[in-house]
């Protein structure tokens, strides 16, 4: 096997993994703080992808610019969703939470089907099919930009949690629910804020993802599962963990595809998930619960 092949594949795996990591970031934040299992995560990203398509079709808005309105929209939507619908479910048993979000996911997927039809949609920007060539190494432009955005978004989120007041408050709520309440933090409000942030994150991921993949209504569930695998492997509540998990999954799938058969590459992600759950359930960079 020629070495350039392996190198190219690994680099592609890293870049793609970073974008997956961005997608998982939102989930990590939500799950890490609010402890709600968002089984509609992939569907939310799908909606963000459609939003980007619509903006592109109507205003020729490049996805990187569309990030601003779409993320903003999702922030609001996420906050409202949490406050209105999900909040009462935090204390409910997991199967209820799960059912709630499955119902929401069903409504989202089929709502998209009703509105957009089953055809796959995409955006067509110039740099989408170009790549940089550095010797025998080929760097896909769209993937490169998207992964850069992923890193930037994670850094921004990290800074938010570390340095701003709201960020610290949210971390407090996550670490110690009772303590936070005792100190007088309006936990409900911060939960809503967190859900909003997580949703905004997923929106950014969607804007990036549409550059790599076409969107159709049925795209959601596979991504939800992927997001969960990454979050568990990388570690709950850890931003670096989400990115690391993404890269790990991206690279392992790429290598598995290369050396064994590509059709089985997802098996490795699940095997990895099982191993992590058993041996280190807090994930690679997560803190012990």
């Amino acid at each position, binding site marked *: 096997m020629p070495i350039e092949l392996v190198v190219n594949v690994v680099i592609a795996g890293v870049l793609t993994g970073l974008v997956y990591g961005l997608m998982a970031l939102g989930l990590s934040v939500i799950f890490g703080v609010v402890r709600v299992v968002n089984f509609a995560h992939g569907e939310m990203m799908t909606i963000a992808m459609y939003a980007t398509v619509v903006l592109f079709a109507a205003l020729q808005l490049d996805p990187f610019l569309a990030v601003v309105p779409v993320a903003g929209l999702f922030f609001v939507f996420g906050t409202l969703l949490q406050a209105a619908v999900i909040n009462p479910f935090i204390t409910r048993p997991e199967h209820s939470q799960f059912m709630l979000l499955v119902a929401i996911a069903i409504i989202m997927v089929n709502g998209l089907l009703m509105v957009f039809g089953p055809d796959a949609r995409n955006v067509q920007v110039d740099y989408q099919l170009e790549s940089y060539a550095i010797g025998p190494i080929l760097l896909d432009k769209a993937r490169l930009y998207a992964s850069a955005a992923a890193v930037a978004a994670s850094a921004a989120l990290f800074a938010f949690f570390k340095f701003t007041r709201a960020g610290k408050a949210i971390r407090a709520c996550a670490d110690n629910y009772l303590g936070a309440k005792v100190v007088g933090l309006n936990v409900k409000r911060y939960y809503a804020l967190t859900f909003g942030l997580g949703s905004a994150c997923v929106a950014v991921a969607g804007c990036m993802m549409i550059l790599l993949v076409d969107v159709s209504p049925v795209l959601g569930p596979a991504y939800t*599962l992927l997001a969960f695998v990454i979050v568990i492997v990388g570690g709950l509540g850890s931003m670096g963990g989400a990115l690391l998990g993404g890269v790990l999954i991206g690279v392992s799938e790429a290598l598995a595809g290369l050396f064994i058969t590509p059709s089985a590459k997802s098996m490795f992600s699940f095997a990895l998930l099982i191993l992590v*759950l058993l041996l280190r359930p807090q994930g690679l960079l997560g803190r012990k619960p």
Partner: protein
Amino acid sequence: MNRRGAVLLAMLAAALILLPAVASNYVLSVATLILFFAYTGQAWNVMMGFAGQLSLGHSLYVGVAAYAAAGLFFHFGIGPWAGVWLAVLLCVVLGAAIGFLAFRFGISGVYFALLTIAFAEFTRIGFDHIDWLGGPGGLFIKVEQREHMDLLDLRGAPQMFYYVMLALTAGAFALCAWLLRSRAGYYWQAIREDEQAAQALGINTFRWKMLAMVLSSALTALAGVFFAFYYNNLFPEQIFHISRSIEIILGPVIGGVGTLFGPILGAAVLTILADSITELLAALGIEIPGVKQVFYGVVLLAVVMFLPHGIWPTLARKLGLEGRR
């Protein structure tokens, strides 16, 4: 159970037994489907209600059992009554393995759910690569003409399948009812209410939880064998798919987790609901794809939000059947 409950139960049983005599094949096929989901929901309920573990990968057991029985029949001509033993054995081993891993490593709640999903997905992709069992092309069992009934090989008319499924469902119901009233039932209740207190009382919580896991997977295995011989073709993509796992838990969650009637009621309500929506939309002339599922999702959402314990507890109260679980 009180007198009223007993009478209603008897009426229901009579209705179910007499159904094939008056119902069309279409109604029968829907009824068989309802019973299938009632049964698997009940089996799942054992893991959830007795061991307190949320399994979102129950399609694993249905699939493994189905393939085991179908594989034996296809390659060696071994009928389902013999094949079922292998199917159950495999599922017991799987259930025990997952249970063991979960309890030994202290995995519960969402993490356990994800573990079960991972196992199911891993198996799904794995079976896609097993050519001996048909791979993604599917495993097709030879279908005999339905004129004659062959209970031994489970070949026959829809009526036969209906009664087999009815027997299974009734059996599961009876088994769970009996278990709940037995000593095991009290142990399970104790563990569910407060595991630490139960342990302090000397109950070997690990053993009882494992028992529930294994029982659940074994019961589900029977559904898998039925599935194989009812549908006569298996595709890994369909039978191990996460949507099947979700279908299995819809009944109990809507009907009422941990209750005896919950899964049956839930399965009935959901199937009839789905069908009614289709008919309603057809009558209104709305042919836009996706509308039906949106309706369905909205109803699901409403039930989950406003009837958190499922439909059965509320219904039981209304019918004056207090005292039933």
